[in-house]
């Protein structure tokens, strides 16, 4: 209650502390400085430790050695061949997995019978670690390309199906109702409403699973291959060439980053409306 006699409310001189938890703003400049530091600090640390002589060269090569190993591999053409081999496998395996999982997930999210039919079996299969299938795949398909592509498909297809189905189910009921009142039949609702509404989410799922595919291909090549980045690592291990291993790991990281950034850009372009 406010009355005339009430004592004057004391004015706070200092501004009240603002709650800053979820989205504390950082200026663009600071953000860029932090981004550079995020990479530069570990790199500097690596250089410092390797240069100090505390750790033997054989375990931790210095950046210049790694650079030399890198230019050697480029000069001999090995790196390019291995990179192409790995990327070719990802393209085939991941591409195949996408071709299967996106339509299947779309079906599960939209058609009544598809969900109870596929969900249980996929739910079980996705918990089996794909890399545990490598021995079986080698027995079945040999150590050629087929077994590696099959591994990628196994590793990606189940997760991506379920993630796609989840995204598709998120289309608001109201939007479907409205579309029906506008005269759209099932096929048109699927193509013109459900698909565009789900596309950004589907791309998000693809981005997550592209990383899975990328990891898996290297693992597969570590175990049985005659080409590829993973294969090049096992070769280097045999001759204790840690500098080569480092160089390949860095290449793997940078290529992965490129894939991720590309997919992110595509996603941002397609999903402009959903931010």
């Amino acid at each position: 209650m406010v009355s005339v006699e009430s004592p004057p409310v004391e004015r706070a001189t200092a501004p009240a502390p603002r709650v800053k938890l979820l989205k504390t703003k950082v200026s663009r400049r600071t953000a860029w400085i932090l981004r550079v530091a995020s990479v530069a600090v570990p790199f500097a640390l690596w250089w410092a430790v390797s240069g100090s002589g505390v750790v033997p060269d054989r375990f931790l090569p210095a950046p210049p050695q790694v650079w030399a190993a890198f230019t050697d591999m480029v000069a001999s053409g090995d790196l390019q061949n291995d990179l192409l081999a790995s990327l070719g496998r990802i393209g085939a395996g991941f591409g195949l997995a996408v071709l299967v999982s996106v339509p299947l997930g779309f079906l599960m999210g939209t058609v009544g019978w598809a969900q109870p039919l596929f969900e249980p079996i996929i739910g079980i299969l996705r918990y089996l670690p794909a890399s545990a299938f490598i021995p079986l795949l080698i027995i079945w398909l040999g150590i050629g390309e087929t077994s590696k592509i099959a591994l990628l498909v196994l590793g990606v297809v189940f997760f991506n199906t379920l993630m796609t189905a989840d995204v598709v189910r998120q289309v608001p009921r109201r939007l479907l109702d409205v579309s029906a009142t506008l005269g759209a039949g099932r096929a048109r609702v699927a193509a013109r409403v459900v698909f565009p509404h789900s596309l950004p989410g589907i791309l998000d799922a693809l981005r997550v699973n592209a990383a899975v595919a990328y990891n898996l291909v290297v693992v597969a090549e570590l175990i049985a291959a005659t080409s590829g980045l993973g294969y090049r690592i096992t070769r280097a291990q045999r001759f204790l060439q840690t500098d080569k291993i480092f160089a390949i790991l860095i290449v793997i990281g940078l290529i992965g980053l490129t894939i991720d950034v590309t997919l992110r850009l595509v996603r941002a372009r397609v999903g402009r409306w959903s931010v």
Partner: protein
Amino acid sequence: MSLRFESVSMAYTPGTPVLEDIDLDIAPGEFVTIVGASGSGKSTLLSLVAGLTKPTKGRIALDGRTVGGPGPDRGMAFQSPSLYPWRTVAQNVAFGLETRGFSRQARKERVAWLLDEVGLTEHAGKLPGSLSGGQQQRVSIARALARSPKVLLLDEPFGALDVQTKEDMQLFIRQVWRDLGTTVVMVTHDVEEAVFLGRRVLVLASDPGRVARDLRVEPLGEGLEVKRSAEFLAVRAQVEDLVRREHRAHLAAAHA
């Protein structure tokens, strides 16, 4: 004989009807508003007309033909505009026209005409996310009108808008009704709005939903100032009492 309910009942779960034995005739070109307590089945009634749900008993006929599902002869807009966020304003309005039977040119002309009617011509190329709530609702109404429906169904279309925008929209929807001559059936929880816009106000009773009162409202004037006239306030109070009585009965039934 335009829109006709013939002893329509609707129960989502068997044994507990939401609407029971509704008989109703709505003539072509009428502006009907429906008020009633929350849960009395107003939205259900509209979705029956839209064909989004099917009555458990009875039938709804539009110009003598039984409603069997959604169709472009009945346009609908909800409280949330539910626009396609990836489509521009013009593309949203065009959605219902993207079937065979509309040439590209015919579609373009129709969309331009509709955007002009709802006053959004200069926003045609924008995405819905960048519009205000009132503008979004105009788009949603224009979209519902695209195929020249015989009936326009509105479920609390202005329920989420601030008072000033809401009043603009009331004048807007009346103008649209005048220009197009379609039948409008509008659900609202705002009695003032119902009496201001409706030439006929239906008050729904709850448990189960029935038409408790069917009031004809003589036009008392054009502008918003009518809302302050004595006659208007009297009608409004009468309807409010009816709604309140139904609400109390509903609460009593719920406690019994």
